């Protein structure tokens, strides 16, 4: 029941927010998101980590005659994703407090509505329900980016939408096919899909149908072309939603619906995917070095980081998968923080051009500290969250193939290059006209950044808090894959 409440509450709150006139909407939305956070923490407290199975299970008939059910629940993998979502959404809402968007009630209702969709994706145990929520999460972000975004928003968000729907339609076709392979009166439940034993040829094409959908969402090279433009054009909150949470839908999809369902397909194509992912790592990093726009720089760095996560997923060893889990959390925390800082800098200086800035450190020490912690988290300095994830991931890839591990390891060096360069040019050096009157963080800005900074250290210093949650589920998953 708890899972269903987690999914439904933001949708109900969204409807309430729609009724509110004026800027009061943001406060109500924030309150609703806090309630959701409490619900999420309640689930965490009551969760039994040692149990690899599904907890808080709810199974209601939905389309009875077709054997499709409203089946939701959480194992360790789901719980971590749910926690990430309920943790980030209130911060993202809080981060918009200084903006006055027109039609605020629609804006905040869409964010909450999207939260419903995201939580549905992370807890669905029925393929069609998963697809349903997958698309439900997409529509709000399309409107958020398309209505409140920058100048080229229409073209860019449309490209994004078309890309993702195109991918997800293939996923749907694969699901329908799998559905008909299930015995008896057919079922689309996850456990039934896991028991399917298809021949290698069929698994091969199903693998690509599913992979394209997930790869576009992450995005993995070469399906990434929508990403930098969309991240740049979307409003700050939209970019945070996309990069912090939505991208994890693709990774989660691979974990939940690709690896265990078509293991033979995975073993056929894993090397190809790893090569693509590793190309993405290097490619994203190199392009990031060349960027002048702060937002684009982080967007490309995100392609690089996600490439590493994708590589880890397909190594099919415990380190790779656990690394992917923890890195999903870390990436979410870091990228949301960095995009928020870019938004702060942009709103004070009026530009995102790296070359135009300098000397911000002198007038904004608090911002500098937060920025630095998040940045170091992103470049995977030991003791920060990024280190734990990258270490595990690289270890996983190295086990799969030492050469691939070596090339993927370039991410550490290249990441340090673009991040440190960017940090130095923006924060240090001489003040100039536009950074002259830079003010330090306000109370609400601190309220967003401090929890993120705390998380950087929490995951970095004590990763077992989170690794222990996902470990039984990951081991169970590996058993299913290697059955």
């Amino acid at each position: 029941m708890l899972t269903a409440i987690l999914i439904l509450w933001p949708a109900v709150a969204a409807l309430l927010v729609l009724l509110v006139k004026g800027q009061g909407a943001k406060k109500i939305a924030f309150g609703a998101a806090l309630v959701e956070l409490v619900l999420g923490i309640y689930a965490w407290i009551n969760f039994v980590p040692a149990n690899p199975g599904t907890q808080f299970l709810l199974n209601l008939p939905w389309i009875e005659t077709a054997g499709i059910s409203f089946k939701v629940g959480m194992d360790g993998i789901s719980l971590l994703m749910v926690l990430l979502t309920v943790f980030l959404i209130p911060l993202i809402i809080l981060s918009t407090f200084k903006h006055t968007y027109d039609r605020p009630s629609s804006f905040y209702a869409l964010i909450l509505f999207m939260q419903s969709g995201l939580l549905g994706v992370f807890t669905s145990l029925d393929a069609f329900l998963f697809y349903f929520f997958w698309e439900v999460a997409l529509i709000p972000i399309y409107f958020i980016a398309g209505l409140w975004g920058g100048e080229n928003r229409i073209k860019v968000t449309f490209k994004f939408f078309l890309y993702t729907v195109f991918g997800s339609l293939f996923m749907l076709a694969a699901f329908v096919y799998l559905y008909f392979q299930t015995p008896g009166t057919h079922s689309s439940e996850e456990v039934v899909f896991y028991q399917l034993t298809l021949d290698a040829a069929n698994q091969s094409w199903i693998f690509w149908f599913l992979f394209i959908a997930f790869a576009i969402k992450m995005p993995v090279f070469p399906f990434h072309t929508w990403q930098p433009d969309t991240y740049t054009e979307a409003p700050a909150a939209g970019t945070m939603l996309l990069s912090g949470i939505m991208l994890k839908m693709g990774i989660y999809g691979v974990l939940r619906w690709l690896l265990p369902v078509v293991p033979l397909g995975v073993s056929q194509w894993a090397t190809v995917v790893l090569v693509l992912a590793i190309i993405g790592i290097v490619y994203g990093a190199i392009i990031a070095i060349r960027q002048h726009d702060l937002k684009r720089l982080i967007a490309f760095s995100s392609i690089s980081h996600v490439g590493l996560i994708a590589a880890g997923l397909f190594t099919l060893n415990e380190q790779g998968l656990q690394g992917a889990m923890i890195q999903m959390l870390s990436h979410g925390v870091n990228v949301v923080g960095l995009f928020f800082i870019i938004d702060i800098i942009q709103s004070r200086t009026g530009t995102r051009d790296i070359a135009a800035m300098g000397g911000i450190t002198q007038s904004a020490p608090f911002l500098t500290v937060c920025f630095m912690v998040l940045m170091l988290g992103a470049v995977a300095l030991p003791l920060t969250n990024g280190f734990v994830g990258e270490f595990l991931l690289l270890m996983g890839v190295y086990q799969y193939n030492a050469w691939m591990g070596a090339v993927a390891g370039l991410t550490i060096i290249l990441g340090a290059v673009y991040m440190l360069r960017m940090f130095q040019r923006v924060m240090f050096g001489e003040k100039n006209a536009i950074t002259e009157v830079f003010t330090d963080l306000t109370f609400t800005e601190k309220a967003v950044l401090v929890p993120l900074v705390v998380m950087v250290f929490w995951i970095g210093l004590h990763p077992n808090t989170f690794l222990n949650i996902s470990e039984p589920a990951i081991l169970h998953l590996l058993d299913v894959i290697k059955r």
Partner: protein
Amino acid sequence: MTSLILLSVFGIVNLFLGFMKSKKVLMPMVLLFLVIALGATVMDWNQPQSYFNNMFTMDNYAVGFTAVMVLSTIFILPFSRSYGEREEANLAEYFSLMLFSLVGGVMMVGYENLLMLFVGIEIMSISMYILAGSDKRNLLSNEASMKYFLMGSFFTGIILFGVALLYGATGSFYLSEIASSAATLEPGNAPLLLMGLLLVLVGVTFKVGAAPFHFWTPDVYEGTPTLFTSYMSTVVKTAGIAAFYKLMSAAFGGVYEEWFPTVVAITVLTLLIGNIGAVAQTSMKRMLAYSSISHAGYLMIALTSFNDRSENALLFYSLAYSVATIAAFGILKYVADARGSDSYDAFNGLGKTNPLLGFVMTVAMLSLAGIPLTGGFFGKLFLFSAALEQGMLWLIVVAILMSAVGIYYYFRVIIAMYMKDPAGERVPVDAFATFTLISLLVLTVLMGIVPGLFNDLL
């Protein structure tokens, strides 16, 4: 059966209502008639009865599709308010023609005999020829009517010719007897049967607006007054596709292999032409015309699989498609009336000037595009599932690619409504139409969240 009689009687009664001074009572009266007819239809549920020497059967299949058609008409009528206020001289006749054409539609979904099908098609079509030309001062409307009439009669002739050949080959007009003689056909009669089948197939293909006999659709839809276009693209299409499915499954299921390649080719061609044609349009009305061609293609996917699943999917899709299309045409009518244009540009900023219209239109477009939370999604899912059960994977891949193309043109409307500056003032909409739009919205979302209520009825 009661509904058939009631609709005929109401049509005639309604003609007399035309003598009244005020035209304002007409619409409420017709709505009342339709609600009674809908009630009478539903009363026949689970009580299959045959009439006229078994030429016509009111089974659940017929009841289901009749209900969709009558319900669609009920939803279309409220958008005719402006006709009533203009004291349109012929309003009673128009409404009567709609009722009569519904009679034809009911015959088309309940026929057991090819003559009944033919009579049904004629009754439905002749009314539509007149309604297409009802805007007499508009040249486009005249052209539409003329085009529709000439083409339509030509293809009716083809159907009749086909029916005659089928009679020659099998010695009967009854579907069941055709089916049994088709299964045990003497070699000499086979060409005759197949020729007859082909001709009937071509004729019905024309009626549902499927390629390659779709070419009349955009022009006729464009010229016809929007209210009747909406009727054409929903009720007429539903009747056509239901008749088509019944014909192929009940009479020619046994010679499946013979006609299957043709039907699959038509389906693919329809999907391609409908969707790619729609991309090129600048007029919203023409886009909807092409979109209706593409939906004929999706509906025809049901013909590739004859199981309970496909029948139910067809009914569900027809309802979801009709509801969304009526909303789209209804809003188009108000916007075009107020802003004097039916191009995409006329929709610019509608989300700001009329939030409700914008929202309903958005949901309608999402439904037509097949995005979850709307009935259109489950319509497609059920249809595709039915075809996949027969192993038609490649056909579904084509349909999926074309759905992605569909998103392009459906989303242009949403982009225009929300992401462009308003093209004009707030569009005035009367309360009754608003209420209807909200009902359509609720129905679409209901079908998208609890599809179980509507699925598996047959």
